[in-house]
């Protein structure tokens, strides 16, 4: 393409540095926000005002920020849960089901110790919380194991299996918490019984302590993939199952392992949202909404190219925009679904801009002769 005396050319990138990838992502975000301004303009609202509202509420307001952070924790767990199988070349679409199982596991512990219907618990807080976290991880991991085993042993498509397990988990939760279910709220409101206060997770200024857990998992995963033998095996399997087989890295073991690990981390997301976010402390009626939100883990995982640390800012952005977008939608009386539309535009733009991870545009002075195309 020619512009004036310059020629634009598309070239393949041979390498991509972290700085370049970051710049491209930031460019994509700016582009997406600019694109979405159209919606605000059409609604007769200044985009600048709208974005200031969104960002200041999501990231700088004492009311919005804790909401953002709690959502960020949830998304980061989901992203990590996606990334582990992703690096092994496998697709975990089942964070939804795994986090539901995690929630059931955590509440199962309370049920086992007779917390249902009473406001007190015999066990000390310092014991019950680790138990709940452990149970959530085990339950999520168990659901993941089904997909991993089927994949490893019979080469069953893991996307289909995890997807279908989501439905099973969804209805299992419904069965457990609705009228007559073992987790049913004594008040019968279609939600689970509430946590006794002694099982409330510690929190700082409205943000659950699970933020340390989520960040810790991300850092650990980064180390796992950068330095360890297990991470090497997972990466090798993800890049080339044939080469992995040559090097004695078994498909069955890797498939099972990554889905158990991924499922366990998704289970933590379930613990976080239903048992650790201040003000929730129960499996709420709209639990399906958080199941849907888990799918943003896939998007963040893809945008960060499977890098567990790069996933942190991405998850934070999505968490903030979903909170800020919802606020602006109400405050400025925009149509329903505006927040989702914003996330959607952002998502598509980020994915589209990955084109520039692989290509670059080169400017050159048009001087050569005989190069007509």
């Amino acid at each position, binding site marked *: 393409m020619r512009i004036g005396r310059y020629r634009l050319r598309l*070239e*393949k990138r*041979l390498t991509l540095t972290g700085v370049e990838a970051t710049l491209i992502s930031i460019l994509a975000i700016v582009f997406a926000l600019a694109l979405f301004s159209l919606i605000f303009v059409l609604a007769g609202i200044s985009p600048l005002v709208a974005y200031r509202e969104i960002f200041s509420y999501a990231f700088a307001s004492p009311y919005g920020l804790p909401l953002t952070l709690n959502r960020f924790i949830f998304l980061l767990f989901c992203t990590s849960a996606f990334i582990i199988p992703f690096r092994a070349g496998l697709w975990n679409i089942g964070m939804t089901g795994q986090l539901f199982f995690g929630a059931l596991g955590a509440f199962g512990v309370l049920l086992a110790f007779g917390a249902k219907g009473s406001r007190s618990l015999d066990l000390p807080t310092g014991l019950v919380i680790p138990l709940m976290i452990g149970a959530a991880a085990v339950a999520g991991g168990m659901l993941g194991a089904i997909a991993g085993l089927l994949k490893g042993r019979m080469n069953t498509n893991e996307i289909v299996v995890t997807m279908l397990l989501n439905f099973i988990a969804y209805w299992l939760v419904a069965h457990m918490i609705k009228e007559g279910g073992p987790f049913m709220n004594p008040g019968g409101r279609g939600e689970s019984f509430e946590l006794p206060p002694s099982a409330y997770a510690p929190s700082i200024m409205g943000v659950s302590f699970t933020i340390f857990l989520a960040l810790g998992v991300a850092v650990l995963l980064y180390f796992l993939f950068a*330095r*360890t*033998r*297990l991470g*090497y*095996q997972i*990466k*090798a399997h993800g*890049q*080339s199952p*044939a*080469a992995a*087989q*040559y*090097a*004695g890295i*078994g498909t069955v073991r890797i498939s099972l392992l990554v889905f158990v690990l991924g499922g366990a981390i998704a289970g933590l997301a379930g613990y976080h949202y239903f048992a650790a976010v201040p003000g929730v402390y129960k499996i709420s009626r709209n639990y399906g909404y958080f199941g849907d939100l888990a799918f943003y883990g896939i998007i963040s995982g893809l945008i960060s190219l499977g890098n567990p640390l790069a996933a942190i800012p991405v998850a934070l952005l999505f968490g903030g925009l979903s909170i800020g977008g919802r606020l602006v939608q109400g405050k400025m009386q925009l149509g329903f679904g505006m927040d989702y539309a914003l996330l959607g535009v952002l998502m598509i733009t980020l994915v589209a801009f990955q084109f520039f991870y692989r290509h670059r545009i080169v400017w050159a002075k048009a001087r050569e002769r*005989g*190069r007509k195309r």
Partner: protein
Amino acid sequence: MGNSHMQKQLLEGIQRGDAVLEARGITKRFPGVVANEGIDFDIRAGEIHAVLGENGAGKTTLMNILFGLLQPDEGEIRMGGQRVEFKSPLDAIDLGIGMVHQHRKLVSAHSVIENIILGHPRARGILNLKQIEEELEELCARYGFNIDLHAKVWQLSEGEKQVVEILKALYRGAKLLILDEPSSALTPVETKKLLASITAMATDELAIVPFITHKLPIVLAISDRVTVLRGGKVTARFNTSHVTEKSLARRMVGRDVIFRTERADVEQGAPILEVEDLSAISDKGVLALKGVSFAIREGEIFGIAGISGNGQRELAEAIAGLRTAAGGRVILGGTEITRASVLERWNLGMGCIPCERLDMGIIGDFSLVDNVAMNYYFDEDFCERGVLDYAKLRALTERIISQFDIAAPSPDTKAKTLSGGNLQKLILARVLSRRPRLLVASLPTQGLDIGATEFVRNKLMEAKKDKAGILLISEDLDEVLSLSDRVAPIYEGEFMSILPGEKANREVVGAMMAGLRPEDGHNEDR
């Protein structure tokens, strides 16, 4: 291309000796490399003009430019004296250029005739198969091709598939035929037939351009002229009658090349590998290896000669632990390993060079360090409490790069940026660096150029001197014969015989590879 019929006339009525195609000053750059630089090349009707060069010399780029897959940055192509531009292979085909790919591009479930007419302009609407068949039979008769037009492609040998591709190009009206590595993967007999047909085609008005990497005798046997490429430039143009194998190789590699790796005399030790009645099932579910027995001693190279698909792959994989044996036993240094895992075998001193270099041996998106780690990640010396010692791995990789003279800018380079020859050196180096007692080498020099081939063969010899036992599986008969202490021709999953190296010659082994049993009392030596 609307004006194709007018353009096709460019080559109508061309006479023997007229220039069919001229390329002038062809230059093609890719990011970081100049693949072709000012290449001049011409081809006349009735001529066989070989293009010779090592991997990375720019042959593939030139071939793709001539066939319209790539467009040159500079320079021009003329056909029948007129300048032409190929925007795609379709343009090139319309103008009378035919291409026979090294990796066949045929539909294996379809018959020969169906493959030939696939994409042919006449294959639209209603087919007159009978007429097409008659025309094809006439083509076959003219050039001495012997092929069943109704056979399914999957039933054909490599040589026959190549004939199908040639027929397809000819039937499409090719006046100029580009052959990519025409004789690789063919048996000696098939090669002979092919060369006869090529010569027959050239006595007509056809122009033929074989692109060849390493089979110099073929260049000498059939071509009229040869153009040698090195580093993207033309380094020599010869009339073939004026050259020898040595002088060609010198122009191609840039130095003198030894053609025969000397078989080193090494005192053989105890048997390191014993295979008893081993059988294995192929991916297609048929018994591909039907009970072979042999033993390899320390310091011995045991060569398997055979045409691909006769059970060699299954044999190598069953020994390497990549395929479950259907029966029989494998014993490595006294320990039975028939059911052992890959890592157990490696820890007992087995090393393996896989036949599918790029799929199995290398991970393209990994750095060289991570690729070397494939043979070391499990080694406790390189891994402490589950954390890999990357400093050590890096140092090892640097040592391998310098010792094996691998052309790579740094150990952190991604493997996919290296050439095939350098990747094969890398695999060989990391396997040999563990000083295996048994080396399973599948197709160790396939697709490599002369320089790299020589290097790999010398390294195998060094390993042999280092007392390793080597199982050498190769489709290059000359390689097996020149390196092996004993040779086992394999046919349909069975050894036809086991011959001592000095008694194994081309004729005897070639016949056995084609399925002829040795006569009674002939060199039986188990």
